[in-house]
């Protein structure tokens, strides 16, 4: 016992740096955000800096753009989650079967995940969705339809499509890994019992995937709450505030209007929102972390 105690004290300096820097990285800026959120503070007018109480939060909550941004965040995260989980599951089931060239096909299918967000956004914005020279415009007009000005008329749908395209491979990859860990004998047994493909999916595969799906949902949510570059490059949050999510709103307040107080209040809301989600993620991962295992 005394030896383990000694070894734990002796090796404390090994873990301390990581813990300390992470603690600083998390606590110092967060404390500053909370502090700033209570101030009247604009970088363009530093002289008027002063205590504002909850004014920033009142201002934020009564700003129609804020309500819109929360709604947009929910729509964006929700739609992308549905698209990626459904798409990813179907693809995982498909790629679980043997077919010629499966390895190469899988490599092609997951490629979008490795494309940096700014490239993905620009390729879709210009080459695909441009209302005059884009490929979609040509496809539509060649079957006799009017080309669509995507980012003007369906801005949120366009952003959702781009982000979903980037994240489907992630869901696919994780769900495929999960499906392949399913005992093949179990599937064979069900098939011998006369289960149809659909029944096999409904009663064997889907229950097996439940945990992996919840992991995908949680992790994607964390990242999707912070979608930024795609919006910055395609719509800049517009038209109006049609594609302004919470992340983008805080960016506008802080780095475009230099309104530190309002931006910080928005940041606090984002932190609270993420923590609600995180609570569930940490809990489900915690179940997997058996101490000493």
């Amino acid at each position: 016992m005394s030896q383990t105690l000694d070894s734990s004290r002796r090796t404390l300096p090994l873990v301390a740096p990581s813990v300390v820097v992470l603690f600083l990285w998390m606590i110092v800026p967060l404390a500053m955000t909370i502090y700033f959120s209570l101030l009247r503070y604009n970088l363009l007018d530093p002289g008027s800096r002063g205590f504002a109480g909850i004014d920033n939060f009142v201002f934020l909550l009564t700003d129609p753009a804020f309500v819109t941004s929360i709604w947009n965040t929910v729509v964006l995260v929700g739609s992308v989650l549905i698209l990626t989980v459904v798409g990813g599951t179907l693809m995982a089931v498909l790629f679980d079967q043997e077919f010629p060239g499966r390895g190469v096909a899988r490599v092609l299918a997951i490629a979008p995940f490795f494309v940096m967000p700014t490239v993905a956004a620009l390729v879709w914005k210009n080459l695909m969705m441009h209302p005059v020279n884009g490929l979609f415009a040509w496809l539509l007009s060649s079957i006799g339809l009017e080309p669509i000005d995507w980012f003007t008329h369906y801005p949120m749908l366009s952003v959702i499509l781009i982000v979903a395209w980037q994240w489907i491979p992630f869901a696919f990859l994780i769900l495929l890994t999960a499906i392949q860990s399913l005992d093949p004998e179990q599937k064979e047994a069900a098939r011998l019992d006369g289960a149809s493909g659909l029944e096999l999916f409904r009663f064997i595969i889907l229950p097996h995937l439940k945990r992996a799906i919840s992991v995908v949902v949680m992790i994607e949510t964390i990242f999707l709450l912070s979608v930024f570059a795609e919006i910055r490059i395609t719509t800049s949050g517009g038209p109006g505030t049609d594609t302004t999510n919470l992340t983008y709103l805080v960016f506008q307040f802080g780095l475009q209007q230099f309104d530190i107080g309002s931006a910080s209040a928005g940041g606090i809301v984002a932190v609270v929102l993420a923590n609600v989600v995180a609570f569930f993620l940490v809990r489900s991962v915690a179940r997997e972390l058996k101490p000493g295992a």
Partner: protein
Amino acid sequence: MRANNTLRTTVLGWAVALLMFFPIGWMALTAFKTELQAVSTPPVLFFKPTLENFAAVFERGDYLKFTLNSVLVSFGSTFLALALAVPAAYRMVFHPTPRTGSTLLWMLSTKMMPPVGVLVPIYLLFRDAGLLDTVTGLVIVYALMNLPIVVWMLYTYFKDVPREILEAGRVDGASAWQEVQILLLPLAWPGIASTGLLNVILAWNEAFWSLNLTTSKAAPLTAFIAAFSSPEGLFWAKLSAASLLAIAPILVVGWFSQKQLVRGLTFGAVK
């Protein structure tokens, strides 16, 4: 019946794969067109490929600077994160305390902090410390951003290393540092390499901090490509060439590290 099924799966599987890959493939094709061909309707499918776009991209002397920034930022942050995380993970696996589990979970929870929640203070702190638009600044941010993932991945890899070997070393009088250096590092080398690789991918593609903390001097490729959304975006062929160059290395690295990616991004929850 069986053969029929396989045919259907093959067609469907390839159709899905090509559909997903299509925008990247189309971009790659556009990179070899002239600007006129790039915007022509109907789209040009057969053409004499040209390298002039790549030449034009390289002629902008700053393109190499942006690439260099990307390399410095992703590898720099990876080394920094590994330097912090290897000792930490070593202690957590081989000298666990009752608090080790909760420390790991706490590290994971810092990853849940949305960047936008700390954007304003980080921006102001960096401004005051002269770290805005510097490679050093981005290296620090990326290392801290990815540190929890790195610790977690190393933790799961170190668990696979037989304890007996390290214990034997300890009996022979090896210090903790010798244990890590002489025994653990060589044994866990593949795991450390894949952890580093994942970190490089994440840092290379990061586009929240790079867009907000850099302007020109330290801008990595993500930020450079973003500049094409302004009037320069009219040059689709050049945009495509620059984009292709920017994503190609990570595409290759990513394809090789799919398995580790699953492990890392799910914090070991799915292996």
